[in-house]
């Protein structure tokens, strides 16, 4: 996780519950699944989690795949091509005047607003409470279990090493409460966030 915010792209479409970002970034910099991102909206910073990254169909690569040989220069050129990418984000809360709110913001971000990655400090501040886990569990389009595990691993990584285990245990307790009626699902998530297991 970068100490400085990195620009991910700009809002293509949005609603209060989520938004899609369009960007043309280098492939090596494609943001990760489960990463925390934020977008300024008036005096709020809307916080979300990346849950889907799609490369738009690329006909040139299809042609190259069918070629008999692939010189090193040709292969290396593909990694710097401006591949159009669409990223989907689930909104999990917002920060207003330094105060974290883990519910949906009053307004969605506007088209073309800039999205940046959250810094470790942002992530740490946002994940002091676990209400956002309920938002993820209820998400219709996102792979909720994978997203919870990925975001908790990210949030743990934002903390000093000595605090990570305790953080994940607290998160596990909150999940046990939320999923008390579905022990099989709970076990699946807990396996994915087991301390030392990543």
């Amino acid at each position, binding site marked *: 996780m970068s100490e400085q915010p990195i620009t991910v792209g*700009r809002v*293509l*479409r*949005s*609603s209060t519950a*989520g*938004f*899609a970002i*369009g960007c043309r970034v280098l492939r090596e910099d494609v943001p990760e699944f489960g990463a925390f991102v934020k977008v300024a909206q008036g005096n709020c910073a809307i916080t979300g989690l990346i849950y889907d990254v799609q490369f738009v169909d690329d006909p*040139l690569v299809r*042609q*190259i795949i069918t*070629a008999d040989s692939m*010189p*090193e*220069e*040709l292969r*290396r*050129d593909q*990694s*710097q*091509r*401006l591949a159009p990418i669409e990223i*989907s984000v689930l909104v999990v809360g917002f920060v207003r005047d330094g105060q974290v709110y883990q519910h949906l913001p009053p307004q969605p971000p506007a*088209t*073309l607003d800039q999205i940046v990655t959250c810094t470790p400090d942002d992530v740490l501040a946002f994940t002091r409470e676990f209400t956002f886990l309920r938002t993820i569990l209820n998400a219709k*389009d996102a792979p909720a279990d994978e997203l919870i595990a990925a975001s908790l691993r990210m949030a743990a990584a934002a903390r000093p090493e000595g605090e990570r285990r305790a953080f994940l245990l607290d998160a596990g307790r909150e999940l046990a409460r939320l999923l008390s009626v579905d022990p099989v699902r709970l076990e699946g998530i807990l396996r994915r966030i087991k301390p030392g297991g990543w």
Partner: protein
Amino acid sequence: MTLELNKVIGQVDALASSAAGAMTQAGELLNEARGWLHKYASHFQKLKAKAAEFGAAIPTDEPLDATRDEPNMPERFTVIGADGSAIPPDRHSAALYYLINTASLTYRHGSGQQPVAFSTPDLRYATENLYEGRLLVQGNLLDVRRDTAEIARLADAAEAEAEPRDVPLVALTDGTLLLWVLEESPEELRRKKVADYVRHLDRLRQVGAAVGGFISRPRYPDVLRLVWMAQLGENVSRQAMEDNPFLGLADRGLFDFLAPGQRSACFIGPSPVNKSYSGVGHTIGFFYVNVGEEGQTEIARIEIPEWVYQSPALLDRLHGAVMAQCRLVTPYPYVLARAHELAVITTDERRQLESFIESALLRHGVQGRPSQKALLKSLTGGAKKSFRK
């Protein structure tokens, strides 16, 4: 939807039937023309003056039907491709401007290195940039500016690559080297525009680059006119030239006897604009080359300045480099496909730029609204979408 497809189906069938008939007829005509190409092949010296007079391809010092096999290339050589695209001024938009986006890719064959990609947008909005005399820079005027920006980008990239000079350099641009849109322009304007353009050809010559303009699926009839003129002999006249039977046919059909990798003889382009190039030492010539594979002929036209077709070494280097590029992915130079990809401006990007401009105008206290026509088009042209698609 306003095109009622069911009403056009009958016409489409007639079109296909007519095209099939025309193809058979074209095959016969091209056979005859090919016969003349071989018959008058050795008359290249004799035909030069008349060809210039009657607007046909002017032979150089090679027999008309000469072919040259694909030359061997050194292990290492560098090919640069450049392309450009433009957003023309739109009086329906919030502000009047034009934008030219130029791009290049430098591909170092045999190096194993990552190619160098570059693109740069140039936004022009000041009145002195938007008008030439009383004419808004759009259409042909903008095309000339874009073509000049492209060749300038090619020269910039070539100069950046020229040191050390031990690797042979080839520079390709997409399309013609002739600013043919100036054909109708006054002599003085034409000379000035061509001077701006050839300044960059000079720069490319200085760094020792073999320059070529790659034209895919060329539709020129220049050599067909030449062989028609040759068989007319003493009976050639303007009227007889106009009465040639090759309407709608192109030289690429004439040269489909070239084996994969082979090029034709070099000729000089008959366009009146070429006179402005000749005066400054950059007469534009061309050859045809089969960039396809066995059983899949694909004839391209490569335009070249005189200092390339007069140098066997530069000519071979260009010929070999074009073939090497056309073998990478498809029978089209990879550097040009990538330069196009880097330069192209999509409708979405154009819309985004328009939106940036409107926001920036607002920040400066200007209510920059699109015209009512543009607004209505945007309302009727797009469908509603949820953020999830």
